Structure formats: structure tokens, C-alpha cells
């Protein structure tokens, strides 16, 4: 079971990593934002899959990450959007 | 390979990448990012050393881990100070270069 969880974590992270090509290619800022958004939730999923079975406190780390990733992506979209609307 | 070895080598490469960035990036903000990469490489190396010191039922040596927490927060405060410096320079001159031939344009940043 642990091996399955680790493999799932690796798979999710690999998927998210592929999605990061959108940061490279763009073309618009909205696409970059989406890649970061996917990385946020994929990173949390990978963290939970890789850690929560072995180390219970990983859940707290994921909780912090969920809060701060929410904050970061909202602030990020605001600064990018604020720029285009000015 | 064990986790400390993998991430120790990753840390060494991060320091190399960061150093490269500090040298070649012409933009000060990019230099700042690169400097942060060097910093996180050093932190990661210390983290690998802490993991190697696992003993007495602890997953890692708590002394370097405590130093890391201190270090990460101080690195953030230094980054915030550097960003504030850059923004002030930009508001003052309209550019962020430190080159001697750059002319000052007051108020250029307010547009």
C-alpha cells in the first residue's frame, strides 16, 4: 500500500510538472496562473500521498500549504490582473 | 541512494545554478531571485546534514533544523528589504540599473 501511495504521489507530481510547461509557453498570463493553480493543488495532493501514511504531521503541513497557496494564487492573480486593467 | 545524498547533491547544484544566475542576470530582481536560490541550496544542504544526524528517535538533528527555521525567516526579511530598496530606486530614477551612465529621471516611476 505504501508503495502504491508513493507511486501515486510521483505520478501526480509528474503530471503537474508537465503542466508547468504552460508557465514556459504562456501565451497569456491567465495560462501561467492556471499552471500555478494546478501546481498548488497537485503539490498538496502529492504531499499528502507521499507523507501522510508515514508522518502524521504532514497533514498540518498540507493545511498550511493549502492556506498559503490560496493566498498566493489570489494575490498573484490580483497583481497580474491589476496590471492589465490599469 | 538515501534522501540526504540525493538532496545534498541537489543542494550543491542549486548553489551552482544560483551563482550562475547572480553573475549573468542583468536585472537586479533576477539577481535577487538567484541569490534566494543560493540561499535555499545552502538551507537544503543543512537540511540533508540534519537528516543524516537522525538519532534518539528523532527524524533529524533538531539543532540544525531550528537554525533552518531562523535562517528561512531572516532570509525572507532580507528579501523584503531588498525588494523595498529596488522599488525605491525605481520610483526615484525610473530604472533599476546601477550603471554609472544611467541618468536620473525624477518622477518617471509615477506614470
Amino acid at each position, binding site marked *: 500500500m505504501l508503495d502504491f501511495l508513493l507511486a501515486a504521489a510521483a505520478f501526480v507530481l509528474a503530471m503537474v510538472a508537465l503542466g508547468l510547461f504552460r508557465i514556459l509557453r504562456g501565451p497569456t498570463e491567465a495560462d501561467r496562473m492556471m499552471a500555478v493553480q494546478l501546481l498548488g493543488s497537485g503539490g498538496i495532493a502529492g504531499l499528502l500521498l507521499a507523507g501522510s501514511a508515514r508522518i502524521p504531521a504532514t497533514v498540518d503541513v498540507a493545511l498550511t500549504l493549502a492556506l498559503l497557496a490560496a493566498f498566493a494564487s489570489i494575490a498573484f492573480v490580483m497583481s497580474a490582473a491589476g496590471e492589465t486593467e490599469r | 541512494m538515501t534522501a540526504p545524498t540525493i538532496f545534498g547533491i541537489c543542494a*550543491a547544484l542549486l548553489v551552482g545554478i544560483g551563482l550562475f544566475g547572480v553573475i549573468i542576470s542583468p536585472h537586479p530582481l533576477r539577481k535577487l531571485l538567484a541569490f534566494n536560490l543560493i540561499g535555499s541550496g545552502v538551507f537544503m544542504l543543512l537540511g540533508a546534514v540534519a537528516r543524516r544526524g537522525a538519532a534518539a528517535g528523532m527524524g533529524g538533528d533538531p*539543532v540544525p533544523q531550528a537554525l533552518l527555521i531562523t535562517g528561512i525567516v531572516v532570509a525572507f526579511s532580507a528579501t523584503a528589504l531588498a525588494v523595498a530598496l529596488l522599488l525605491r530606486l525605481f520610483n526615484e530614477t525610473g530604472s533599476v540599473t546601477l550603471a554609472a551612465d544611467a541618468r536620473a529621471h525624477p518622477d518617471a516611476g509615477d506614470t
Partner: protein
Amino acid sequence: MIAALNIGVAALVLALALFTIVARESFAACVGFLAYGLLLTLVWVQLQGLDVALIEGAVGGGLTGVLVIGAAVRLRSTQAAADAARLGMPARMLAVLLSGGVAAAMAACVLALPDPAPTLAPQVSASMAATGVANPVTAVLLAFRAMDTLLEAIVLVLALIGVWSLAPDRVWGGRPALGYDVDPDGILAYVARILPPIGIVAGIYIFWAGADHPGGKFQGATILAAMWLLAMRAGLTDAPPVDRKWLRLALVAGPAAFFAIGLAGTVTAGAFLAYPDGYAKVLILAIEWALLPSLALTLFLLMAGAPQRMSAP
């Protein structure tokens, strides 16, 4: 399987670091840096540094990323001048050689680390009972290496003084950072009302758990600062003017209380920052409670930046 996952994570971290360096636009580089910070959290979990993972997730993945992205947006017009100033090929080759050499030397050192590794974990474990806390990192931060933590709290205040002193004379004593024009009934104002209460509970929980489990005041304070910043960005609240007496008192209250308890130790326990027998846990908790609001306020104001305007909105 774990080794494969670790190698994959390390490769991803390196790829994002490289992207941060070589990306054409500063904005894209900063986005890469934000993603890099998020991934480092996973590295810390794999290295069994849960306390470090918490602070990295909060500071590296959150605050620093938002800080540099905000700066990149403001500095966008300087991109062209920077592009024109790129180094020539010979200088780039030299830079590759130099940084490659440094990385190779460091990697060689990593491979030559002594076995068995030196560790202070047994000493910490042997003396931890005297502190009354069950999280060894908290014991180190507030008992065995309390001097570091005290100086760190002071450094944060010094950095904030540095940021404030960058304000132009005409707005000295004013409010930092302009808010955004946000529709008060829009989605953003809505989420800025929903998220901070959850965040405050989570921040206090992480802080509270810190005595016995991974967590603590730095991690909690960072979450609190981020939530306040979100409310400010959404226009629900404003940053306080920096010349307010209460603000300055609140900023130094935490480090001052820490320092006072440390000084009291010279009388009651015979050394600076020593705790008398049996009172260690109470004093450690007192220091943590005193530091939390000051740290949250300092981190928030560091993010908000130098004062920029005088008038109240």
C-alpha cells in the same frame, strides 16, 4: 520507490530553479520561483524536517513568492533595459565554469560527509525533559539556542526599520502600499471575508501545536500575516500609518518581553536566557505568546513595504 520519488522531486526542483534563472521575462521567472517554493515544502517533508516544511510552505511558497511577483509587476517597464545589458558569450562561459566548479566542489563535500554523522539529537533528547516541551525543535529554539531566536526577532524589527526608512520624506509616517480597487460585492471581497477566519484558526492551531508537535510561532505568525495581507489587498482593511505609537509598541513588545525574561534569568537562574527549575515550560509559553503578535505584525508590515501615501482613504 522512495528513492525514485526523491530523485524525481530533486529533478523538478532543479528544473524550476533553472527556469527561474533563464526565463526571458522577470514575471515568468517569479512565477517559477513561487512554484519552486511550493515544491521545497515537499523536499523538507522527505528530509523529515516537518517544522522546516511548515515554515518553508508558509514563507517560501507564500510570502516570498507574492513579494517578488508584486515587484516584477511594478518593475515591468525596466525589462527592456535589462535585456539590453546581457553579458557577452565569454563572460557567460566563465560564469558556467565558475558556478559549475562551486557546485562540483560542494557535491564532492556532500559525498565525503563523515559516517556516522555527528549529531546533537541525543543531547537534546537527554535534556528535553527539563524544558517541559515535547517538540525538540521548539526546545532548541526557545531553550538551548534561545539567543539565536531572540536575535532573529530583533533582526526582523531592524529589517522593518530599514524598509520604512526607504520612504520618501513627504510620506514619512504615512501608510504603506496602495490597496487595489476591488468591487465590494465581488468574489474577491467575498473570499477575503471567508478565508481569514479559517486562516486565523489554522494559524493559532499551528502555533498552539508547536509545543508538542511540529509547528510554532514563526509558522503561525506567517499564516496570520498572510491573512491580514489578503484582507488588505481586497480593500476590507487598511494598513496602519507607521507613525502610530501603538503600532511601534506592538512591534517591540514581543522581543522586549523575550529580552526581559532573559534578563530575569540572570537573577533567578544565574545566566542570561536561563530558566529557573520547574518554570521552563511556563516561561517558554509566555515568550511564544508574546512573540506571536509582534512577529505577525512585523511580517505583515515587511510584506506591505515602505510608506507610500499620507491621506486616509
